């Protein structure tokens, strides 16, 4: 076991972890932040994506021990009790959610994209989604949702 410090959703944690624990394992099984999903364990489906210092990354292939002092935002960290993140609102409005299992990873990817590129083209959205699988929606309404979120940014 090794002790490391991490900031998760704004809170400072000191965690006792084993060398082989992935960030996904720490989030789900140690902290019970279960919004981040296991879909493949190989970094190929994107269901476990979280923001690490603002960049969307698959948590299933990252070892927690290498993330000392990193800032992590999970899906739970995006919304407040009475207010969803605009990207979350857009996902609902555009009908981008079906079974919901890929949704946290999709939202995280979308948030990271829009933070870096507030007005992406459709092609830029598609490129950003290259590492996120969804079997329900066929992606169309997810792309629509990200465009909607981008437009809403204008109005704010």
């Amino acid at each position, binding site marked *: 076991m090794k002790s490391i410090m991490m900031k998760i959703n704004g809170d400072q944690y000191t965690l006792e972890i084993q060398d082989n624990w992935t960030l996904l394992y720490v989030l789900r099984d140690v902290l019970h932040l279960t919004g981040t999903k296991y879909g493949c364990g190989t970094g190929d489906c994107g269901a476990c994506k979280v923001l690490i210092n603002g960049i969307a990354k698959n948590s299933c292939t990252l070892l927690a021990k290498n993330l000392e002092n990193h800032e992590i935002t999970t899906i739970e960290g995006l919304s407040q009790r009475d207010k969803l993140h605009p990207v979350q609102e857009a996902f609902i409005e555009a009908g981008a959610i079906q079974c919901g299992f890929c949704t946290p990873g999709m939202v995280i990817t979308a948030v990271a994209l829009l933070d870096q590129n507030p007005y992406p083209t459709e092609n830029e959205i598609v490129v950003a989604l*290259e590492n996120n699988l969804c079997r329900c*929606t066929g992606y169309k309404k997810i792309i629509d949702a990200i465009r909607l979120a981008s437009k809403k940014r204008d109005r704010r």
Partner: protein
Amino acid sequence: MRYIGKSQPIFDAREKVTGEMIYADDLFFPNMLHGKILTSPVAHAKIKHIDTMQAEKLPGVRAILTYKDAPDVLYNRNMQWINDLKPATERVLDKVVRYVGDRVAAVAADTAEIAQKAISLIKVEYEELPAIFDPEAALKEDAYSIYTGGNLIKELNKACGNVDQAFDESYHVTQNTVSTSMIHHGAIEPHICIAHASREGEICIWEPQRAPFRTQIMLGKIFKTPYSKIHVHGTSMGGSFGSKEGLMIEAIAVLLAQKTGRYVKIRYDRNESMISTFTRHAMKLYGKIGVNGQGKITALDVKAIINSGPYCGDTTNIQGSMCSKMFKLYKIPHMRFVGQSVYTNTQLGGAMRGYGSPAIFYALELLVNKTAKELNMDPVAFRMNNLVAPYGIDPINQLSLGNARIKDCLQKGSELFNWEEKRARQSSIETERYAYGYGVATAVHGNGVAPEPDITVVSLALNEDGSMLLRTGISDHGAGTYTVLKQIAADILDMPMEHIALIHTDTYSGLYDRGAGSSRNTWVGGAAVAEIAKRMKNSMTLIAAEALQVSSEEIVLEDEVFKIKDNKAKIDKKGVACYAYQEKRAKIIETLSYDSPRNAGSYGAHFAGVQVDKLTGEVKVEEYVAVCDVGKAINPMLLEGQIEGAILMGLGMALFEGLQLDEKGVPKNAGFKKYRMPKASDMPKIMIHFVEAYEEGGPFGAKSIGEAAIIPVTPAIVNAVNDALGTELTEVPLLSDKILKAIYK
């Protein structure tokens, strides 16, 4: 209409988008153990010896199972009701393994990591047996028989007219042979199950499950436990597409729970979900069409070889289902279907979105295109000349096809796609590198399982504040069923959707449902909800009349309250509930066992435009039009979502999806790194149109879409590729090397 025909996001979208939705893997019970299953690395073998000693010594290991610990009960994993007599050759753990991925042993340990380590310490000595992977080879008389009595599970023959004579008299005959692959369902949530065995002898299961009452049947059989002690909770499904049904890991979890007295969670990893559950059946189909001089199809003959893998599961049902669909699309006087379900040592085939229809219409729609081409006829016009009309008669069961609007779909699709214009300028846009092609396909799928008993049970209870509790056994795959059911109830009861709680019942409720398959959810579940909402409205009307001291004919439900016609007196639902409580000393609860009276056809016509790169063999589906015969669009946004998802899934089946086996039956491309599923970049420009024409028997005239939407996709795309290249490619997936070979043969 307050809610019907209105787009609504999925009612639990807020839970899902915030990560607060609880799926089975998010449940952590006290003192819970984690299970892992050792699966077979060989395709067919007797287990000579299993040594678990090393694994047992590992700290944190709480139980180990081998075939010696499992009940010696043969079962079929897809029993649909208690007297289902489909072939039963599977055991929870067996001393013979029959495919790569078959269950060998299991471990429960304090953590999943320890369980995994323990699994790797179990030593198994296999005595390999002959293995057979090609179903046609398995049917040969001298083939090795996996069980005694040959590898043919069941042959099905259905025909109308005189097929052989009709071919003899045909003006023109066209034949082809097509094949489809083993496709992974690809639900992003892998298979998972939590089990508990109480000291009272109860078996409790928490899992994403589209048919909890079927899980109960198999567990009852295996553990010789009365249903009154089997408690199956269906958790939120993170996608299914057919995959979340049938006994796979449940009995292992129960055995581990019984042995340890603790909760046990087993979650398959992605490779296990791909290999050790089941896939869409790989099939080979031989087709033959005869036409007369007027371009009318006079005869159709299809033979399907269905690779089941070593256990029957749902295979014979799927064989029956695809057979029955074949007779419902074209008006052909002489038709024959022969199906052969076959045991092999590949991974298992089973139910997946479409339940055999994607294969039968893949064969048929490639064949129809080839016929049109040979006759030098436009494939749209040729179809238009032969498709069924509304209220035609199914030649096999003599029942009405219902309001079958396939011709309307084809006509509309052809207009939206600019079919004729596109084809006219096709040759002018081809370049040295890129070829362009256009494909069309039509298809039909069913609605429920009628004329089989198609039963679902619902209940509706009125609370004293006027809100309602709607209980249904129907399981939501995640596609929006519950939202649609709420819309139906709220519309009839004239009340806000938010004031109706939808409660998914478990097996302890007794509110049975046959299972969320066969496109039943809207057609059967929705119709049942519509019926019970009408009964509730009726009951409330009677009480309102009594309270207002008029006859019930004088009462109308308007603006959410019960009013006397042409009068100001009124009583709201709260008033009705309180009057019943105080004056009648009763709660208003309705319960209904609903049996769907008929099985309608959901038709569709799809059009695909592709670009083929002649240098690399890559196909890009550029444009796509889907016109669907939906009866009534209850929630257009959810309907579109179903169709869009189906287009991408069918595109995967056409272009790159399929488990590939080496010569020993080992999948070469398991896992998402190697098994390619469609990504956002594969999405074509999509246009969707609904043909809305009332269908008798569905709620508000609506019929199913979830399965129907995928069926025409694969043939539409393959027809487009063949159109682009002038080829006759028939084996999906059309991987780029296959395409290059066809171009430069």
